[in-house]
C-alpha cells in the first residue's frame, strides 16, 4: 500500500462502520483541553492575590502567573503535533475562516498571551531595571549577555520611583481582572469546538462549553493546590536543613499551609459539584429523551466505556477525592492523594469525551476502539501516542524552568 492511512494503526473496528471512519482525533486532542484548562486555573489562582488581595497567596501568585505563561506557551503544542501539516499551522492565525470554532484560537490565544505577558512585565519591571543597572559594569561575557537581555526587557522604562510602581500595581490589577474572563473564554471555546459538531451524537450539547469550564477550574485549582503544597514542603525542608536561623518555624509553615489548603479545597469541592451536576444532567437528559442516537450511546456509556466513565472518572476521579476532601481532620498527605485523583478524573473526563465520542460509528451500528501507541515506530505513532502526550505534559515544566532563569518566581526573602 502506497502512503500512510491516518488512524489505521490505532483503530480497530467492530460491526458495521463506514470505510473512512477511524479515530482521527487521538491523545493530543485529549491533551489540548487538559492544558488550556490548567492555564485557566493557574491564572485564576494568581488573580486571587492581585485582584482579591489574598495576602497569603503572594508567593503563589508570582509562581502561578509564570507557570500559567509556561502552560500557555505549551498549550498549542498538542494542536500542532496533531496536525497533518504542522508547518501550515500558522495559517490559523493568518487566514482564519471565522465560521470555524478553531479559527478563534488565534485571536483568543494572542489576546490572552498578551495579557499574561504584560502582567508578568509589570510584576517584574522593578526587578528588570535593578538587574540591568547592576549588570551594567560587570565583566564577563555571560554578565554582558544577561545585562543585555534585561536592558531589552525593561523596554526603556527605567523609572522605579514610588509613584511609578504604584501605577504598575494598578495596571497589574486591571490586567489580572480582565484576564479571568478571557481565560474562561479560552477554555469555554475549547468546549464549543466539540459541542458544536452536530455530526457527533455524544459531543453535540450546548452544555459542553460550561461543563468544560467547570472541570477546567477544578483541574486548575487542583494543580495549583498541589504545586503549592510541593513548594511549602520544599520551604519546610529548607528551614530544617539550613544553618541560618529563619524567622519562621516548621510548625508555622505547616499551620498556614493546612489552613490555606482547607480554605481552597472548599472552592474545589464547590466547582466539582457544579461540574458533576452538569455532566449528570446531560446524561439523564439524553437517557430520558432517548433520541435516535441513544441506543448506541447507551451501549457505549454503560457498556464499552463503563470502566472508563463510571469507575475511573466518576469513582476514582470524583467520588473518592470528594470523600477524602470532606472527611474531617484533613492532613496534607490525604489532600495530596485527593488532588492527584482529581487531576486524574479531569484527564479521564477529557478522554471519555474525545475518545468516547469516536467510540461509535456514524452508522450507529458499529464501534471503534482506540489503542494508544505506546512504543513509537514512526513519526505518527510518536506524535499521536503515549510519547507525544508525555512530551506535551513535560513541556510546561521545561518552559517554566527556562522562564525562571530570567524571571525568578520561586525566590523567598
Amino acid at each position: 500500500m502506497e502512503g500512510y492511512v491516518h488512524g489505521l494503526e490505532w483503530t480497530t473496528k467492530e460491526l458495521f462502520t463506514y470505510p473512512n471512519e477511524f479515530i482521527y482525533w487521538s491523545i493530543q486532542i485529549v491533551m489540548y483541553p487538559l492544558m488550556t484548562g490548567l492555564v485557566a486555573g493557574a491564572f485564576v489562582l494568581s488573580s486571587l492575590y492581585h485582584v482579591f488581595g489574598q495576602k497569603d497567596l503572594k508567593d503563589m501568585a508570582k509562581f502561578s502567573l509564570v507557570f500559567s505563561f509556561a502552560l500557555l506557551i505549551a498549550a498549542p503544542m498538542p494542536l500542532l503535533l496533531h496536525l497533518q501539516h504542522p508547518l501550515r499551522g500558522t495559517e490559523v492565525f493568518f487566514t482564519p475562516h471565522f465560521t470555524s470554532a478553531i479559527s478563534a484560537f488565534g485571536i483568543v490565544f494572542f489576546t490572552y498571551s498578551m495579557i499574561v505577558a504584560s502582567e508578568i512585565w509589570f510584576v517584574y519591571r522593578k526587578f528588570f531595571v535593578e538587574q540591568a543597572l547592576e549588570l551594567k559594569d560587570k565583566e564577563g561575557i555571560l554578565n554582558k549577555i544577561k545585562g543585555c537581555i534585561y536592558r531589552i526587557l525593561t523596554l526603556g522604562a527605567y523609572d522605579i520611583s514610588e509613584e511609578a510602581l504604584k501605577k504598575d500595581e494598578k495596571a497589574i490589577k486591571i490586567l489580572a481582572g480582565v484576564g479571568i474572563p478571557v481565560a474562561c473564554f479560552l477554555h469555554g471555546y475549547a468546549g464549543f469546538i466539540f459541542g458544536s459538531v452536530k455530526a457527533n451524537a455524544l459531543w453535540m450539547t450546548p452544555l459542553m462549553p460550561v461543563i468544560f469550564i467547570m472541570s477546567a477550574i477544578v483541574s486548575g485549582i487542583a494543580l495549583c493546590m498541589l504545586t503549592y503544597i510541593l513548594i511549602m514542603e520544599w520551604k519546610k525542608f529548607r528551614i530544617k536543613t539550613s544553618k541560618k536561623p529563619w524567622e519562621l518555624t516548621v510548625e508555622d509553615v505547616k499551620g498556614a499551609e493546612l489552613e490555606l489548603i482547607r480554605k481552597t479545597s472548599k472552592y474545589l469541592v464547590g466547582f466539582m459539584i457544579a461540574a458533576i451536576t452538569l455532566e449528570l444532567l446531560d446524561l439523564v437528559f439524553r437517557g430520558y429523551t432517548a433520541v435516535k442516537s441513544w441506543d448506541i450511546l447507551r451501549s457505549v456509556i454503560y457498556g464499552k466505556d463503563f470502566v472508563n466513565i463510571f469507575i475511573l472518572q466518576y469513582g476514582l476521579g470524583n467520588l473518592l477525592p470528594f470523600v477524602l476532601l470532606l472527611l474531617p481532620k484533613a492532613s496534607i498527605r490525604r489532600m495530596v492523594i485527593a488532588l492527584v485523583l482529581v487531576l486524574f478524573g479531569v484527564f479521564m473526563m477529557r478522554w471519555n469525551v474525545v475518545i468516547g465520542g469516536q467510540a461509535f460509528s456514524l452508522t450507529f451500528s458499529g464501534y471503534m476502539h482506540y489503542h494508544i501507541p505506546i512504543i513509537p515506530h514512526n513519526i505518527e505513532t510518536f506524535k499521536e501516542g503515549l510519547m507525544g502526550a508525555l512530551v506535551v505534559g513535560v513541556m510546561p515544566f521545561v518552559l517554566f524552568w527556562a522562564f525562571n532563569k530570567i524571571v525568578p518566581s520561586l525566590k523567598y526573602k
Partner: protein
Amino acid sequence: MKFTRRDFLKTALSGTIASVLPLGGLRILKPGEVRAEIEKTNVRWGFLVDTYKCVGCGFCVKACKLENEVPYDAPVTRTWIERYVILKDGRVFADTPMGGRDGFVSLKVRETEIKPADIAKAFFVPKLCNQCEKPPCVQVCPVGATYQRADGVVLVDRSWCIGCGYCIMACPYGVRFFHPVYRTAEKCTFCIHRLVKGMKTACVQACPFGARQVGNLKDLNDPITKVILNERVAVLKDEYGTKPQVYYLGLDKNVR
C-alpha cells in the same frame, strides 16, 4: 463592422450588469466573479442513485480510485458500496469490505454466514459526497481550505489544508478522510475536473447498469432533474440540516 447576435448578447449582458451594478452599489465585480455569478444561476450539480439497479459489482469504486489517485489498496475511498441484508426475523446485517471495491461475492457478512432461505430482502447502496447545500465541513474549516463552488461542489485545497481533521469530524456521512499521500483532507469531488469538460464522473461512466447518474439540478430538462421532480426520492440523514444533493430511488429505512 459586423455585429453578430453573439456580440449583441454580450453587449446587452454587460450593459445589464453595468446598469445593475451601481444599483447593487457596493463594489465592482471582477470579470471572473461575474462569470461565476452567471454560472451560479445556471448550474447546480446533483446526483441520482437508483438502488434498484445497483448489483454491487464495485466497478465505480475501482474507477474512482484510479481516476482520482486514491491509493488502490488503502482502506479509504471517495465512494463506496454498502450491502444490506435483512433477515426474515428482522435482523439487519450490513457491510462494506474495502468499500465494496472488489464486489460482494460471499454470503458471509463479516463473520456471519447468511443462509439464503433466511433473507427477506437484500440490496446495495452506493455512497459518495452529498455536496450538501449547507455543508458543515466547510463551516468548520479553520483556514478556509475547504470551500463550496458556485455550482455546489465542495472541494479541498490541498495546498492550504493544515490537516486538522475538523471537517472529517463534522461530516455526518463519513465521507472524508486524510489522503494517504498528500495528508490533506480528501473527499469525493463529483469528478469536477471531468464535469467542467462536459464528461460524466468516473463512477457514472463505469457503472454498467446505470445505477449512478450525475446532472444539473437547475436544468429542468436534465434526465436526473426530471426523475427527482417526478418520482419519490429520498436523501440520507436529512435530520442534520445539511441539505444533501445526492438523491436516492428505493432508499430503505435500514440504510445508515
